[in-house]
C-alpha cells in the first residue's frame, strides 16, 4: 500500500522541493529586499493556510475562525515580550505553540459533535470571543494599538540559523557588510523559510500517510469510519490541536518578524483570507493552499500595494479577493490548482482511492469480529472514495 501512496507523495514533494530550492536561492539572484520582507510574511501565511487545511481540508471540519489560533499565538509572544522579558524568542515561540494547542483543545472539544453551519458559527464566534477579550483586557493587550516592541526573531537562537544560512548562500563578506536592518531582512526570510519547510514537509508526510487517509475517511463518512474501527474522536480532536498548534507557531513567528502584535491577527478578515487562499489553491491538498498563499500575498503586498487605487483604498483589496472567491466557488469550486495537480497525480490518485477502500475493508474486517452489521457501512465508505 505504501508503494502506491508514495507516488502520490512524490508529485507533491517534488513540487515542494522545487519551490524550496527556488526560495532558498532567490536572494542570490534577486537583491530586492522589499520582496524578501514580503516573502518572509508570506512564509507565515503559507503555514496559516497549510495548518487550516489539515483540519478543514482533511477532516472536513471547516474552521471559520482560524485567526483565533494565529492571534492567540501572536498574543502569547506579545504578552511574554511585555511582561516576561527574560523569555528568549525561541521560548516565546514554544509557548505560542503550546498555548494555541491548548486553545485547540478548548475550541475542539465543544466542536466535536458540530457540523456545517453549527461548526462555522462556533469557530467564528470563538475567534470573535478572543477579539472581545483583547478589548476587555485592554490594559494588557493594548486594545486597538496592540503590543509593539516584541522580541525580534534576530535575537533568538533561530536568528543564528538565519544568519548561518545567509552567510552560506550570500557569502560571509556580504552579510557582514550589511546594515543591521538589512541583515534582519535576510535572517527573517531564511528563518521563516526553514520553519515553513519543516511544517510543510511534516504535514505532507502526515497528510498523505496512513493518518491522512484516516482523516479523509472521517470527512467522507464519519459513521463508516467509526464502524471501520477509526477512533474518530481522537483524530478529529487531534487535527484540531495540531492545526491550532502550527497556526499558533506561525502566528508567533509572524509577530516576531513584524516586531508587533495587533488585533488584526484576530479579525474575521484574516480567517476569511485564509479560507480564500485555501479555496483558490484547492482544499485538502496542503501544497495547493501553500502555493496559493504565495500568490495571494505577493499579489497583495507586492503588487496591489503599489497600485495607486489600492494604496488609497486598502480596504478594497480584501473586497476584491472576496469577489474573486465568490466567482471561483461558482465557476471552479475545486480551486485553481487541483485541476493542474490532478493531471500530474492522476495515476497515483486512482490507486490512492483503491487503497482507501482497502484500508477501510481491512478495518471493517477487524471490526466485524465484534459486530457483523458493519458490512453495509463499508460500502458507503468506499463509494465516495472511488471518486477521487
Amino acid at each position, binding site marked *: 500500500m505504501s508503494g502506491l501512496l508514495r507516488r502520490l507523495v512524490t508529485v507533491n514533494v517534488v513540487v515542494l522541493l522545487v519551490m524550496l530550492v527556488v526560495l532558498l536561492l532567490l536572494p542570490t539572484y534577486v537583491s530586492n529586499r522589499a520582496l524578501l520582507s514580503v516573502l518572509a510574511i508570506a512564509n507565515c501565511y503559507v503555514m496559516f493556510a497549510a495548518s487550516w487545511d489539515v483540519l478543514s481540508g482533511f477532516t472536513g471540519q*471547516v474552521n*471559520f475562525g482560524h485567526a483565533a489560533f494565529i492571534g492567540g499565538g501572536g498574543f502569547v509572544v506579545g504578552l511574554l515580550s511585555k511582561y516576561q522579558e527574560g523569555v528568549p524568542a525561541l521560548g516565546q515561540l514554544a509557548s505560542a505553540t503550546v498555548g494555541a494547542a491548548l486553545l485547540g483543545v478548548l475550541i475542539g472539544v*465543544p466542536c466535536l*459533535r*458540530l*457540523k*456545517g*453551519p*453549527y461548526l*462555522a*458559527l*462556533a469557530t*467564528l*464566534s*470563538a475567534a*470573535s*470571543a478572543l477579539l*472581545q*477579550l483583547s*478589548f*476587555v483586557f485592554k490594559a494588557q493587550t493594548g486594545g486597538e494599538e496592540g503590543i509593539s516592541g516584541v522580541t525580534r526573531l534576530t535575537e533568538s537562537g533561530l536568528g543564528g540559523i538565519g544568519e548561518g544560512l545567509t552567510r552560506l548562500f550570500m557569502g560571509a563578506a556580504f552579510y557582514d557588510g550589511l546594515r543591521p536592518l538589512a541583515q534582519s531582512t535576510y535572517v527573517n526570510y531564511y528563518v521563516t523559510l526553514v520553519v515553513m519547510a519543516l511544517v510543510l514537509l511534516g504535514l505532507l508526510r502526515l497528510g498523505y500517510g496512513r493518518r491522512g487517509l484516516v482523516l479523509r475517511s472521517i470527512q467522507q463518512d464519519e459513521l463508516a469510519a467509526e464502524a471501520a474501527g477509526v477512533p474518530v474522536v481522537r483524530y478529529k480532536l487531534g487535527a484540531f490541536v495540531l492545526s491550532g498548534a502550527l497556526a499558533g507557531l506561525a502566528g508567533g513567528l509572524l509577530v516576531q518578524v513584524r516586531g508587533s502584535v495587533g488585533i488584526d491577527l484576530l479579525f*474575521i*478578515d484574516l480567517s*476569511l483570507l485564509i*479560507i*480564500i487562499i485555501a*479555496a483558490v489553491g484547492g482544499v485538502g491538498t496542503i501544497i495547493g493552499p501553500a502555493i496559493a498563499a504565495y500568490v495571494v500575498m505577493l499579489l497583495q503586498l507586492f503588487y496591489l500595494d503599489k497600485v495607486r487605487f489600492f494604496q488609497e*483604498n486598502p*480596504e*478594497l*483589496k*480584501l*473586497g476584491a479577493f*472576496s*469577489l474573486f*472567491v*465568490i466567482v471561483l*466557488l*461558482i465557476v471552479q*469550486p475545486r480551486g485553481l490548482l487541483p485541476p493542474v495537480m490532478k493531471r500530474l497525480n492522476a495515476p497515483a490518485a486512482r490507486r490512492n482511492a483503491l487503497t482507501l477502500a482497502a484500508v477501510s475493508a481491512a478495518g471493517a474486517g477487524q471490526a466485524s469480529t465484534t459486530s457483523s452489521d458493519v458490512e453495509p457501512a463499508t460500502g458507503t465508505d468506499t463509494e465516495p472514495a472511488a471518486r477521487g
Partner: protein
Amino acid sequence: MDVLVQGALTSATLALVALGFSLVYGVARIVNLTHGSFYLIGAYAAYAAGQAGAPLLLAVLTGVGAAALGGLLLYVLVLQRLEHQEVALLIATLSAAVLVDSVVRYFYGAQDRRLASFADGATTIFGVQVLSSRVVAGVVAAITIVVVLSVLRFTPVGRMVRAVAEDGEAAVLVGIRPRRVMLAVVVVGSALAGLAGVMAAPYGVVNPTMWLLPLTQAFAIVILGGLGSLNGTILAAVVVGFLDRFVAFTFSGGEIYVGLITIAVILTTLVVRPSGLLGQAVAR
C-alpha cells in the same frame, strides 16, 4: 425595571433580524452569513437618502428597499448557483459580507455616522426613561413581526412558504415553484434585516463593521431557539435581548461584554442542547 423595559425593546429589534435569518434557513436551508450585511445596507442606504435630503419616511423606505434589492441580487447571483453546497454557501456568503463591508468603507469611510430619528428626546415608560428612538424601533419591530407571522400562518402565500419549508419536492407536486418562494423569502428576510438596521441606527452605531454583531446575535438566537422553528426564534430573541440589556446595565462598561454574552449563549447551547429550546432533535 430598567432592564425589563429596555430588554423588551431590544428583544423586538433582535427578533426582527433573527426572524429573517430563521426564515431563510427554514425555507431555503441556507445559512446566510450575509444577513447582517443587510442590516448594514439598510442603515447606510437610509443615511445616504437622508443626506440627499429625502424626508425621513422615504429614507426608511430606501433603506428597506436597498436591503431587499441586495437580497434579490444575492439570491440570483450567488445562492441559487450554489444550491445544496453547504460549505461553499458559507464561504461565499461570508465573502459577500466582507465585500459589502469593504465597498461601504470605500464610499463612506470607517467613521461612525449618525442617523435622524422619528422621535428625539426621551419617553417615560413605567417610570423608566428610554430614548424615544428605541421605543419607536421596538414598536415598529414588534408590529412587523406580528404582521409577518400572521401572513405566514393565515394567508395562501404563507401556506406556500410553509409547504416549501416542510418539503420542497412535495411542494412542486402541488404546483409551487420552490425557487420563487425561496427568492421571495430571501428578499423579505433581507428587507426585515434592513428595517431593523434603519430603526436601530439612530441610537446605535453606524459603521462598516456593524454587520457582525447582528449576524452573530441572529445566529445565536436562531440556534438557541432551534434552527427552523420560528416560535423558538422569537422566544430566544427575548432571552438574548434581556440578557443583552442585563449585562449592559449590570457591569460598568458593559457594552463590551454584550458580544461575549452572545458568544457564551451560542457555545453553551451548542454543547448542552444543540437542538435549541423549541427545535426537534437535529437530524444529522
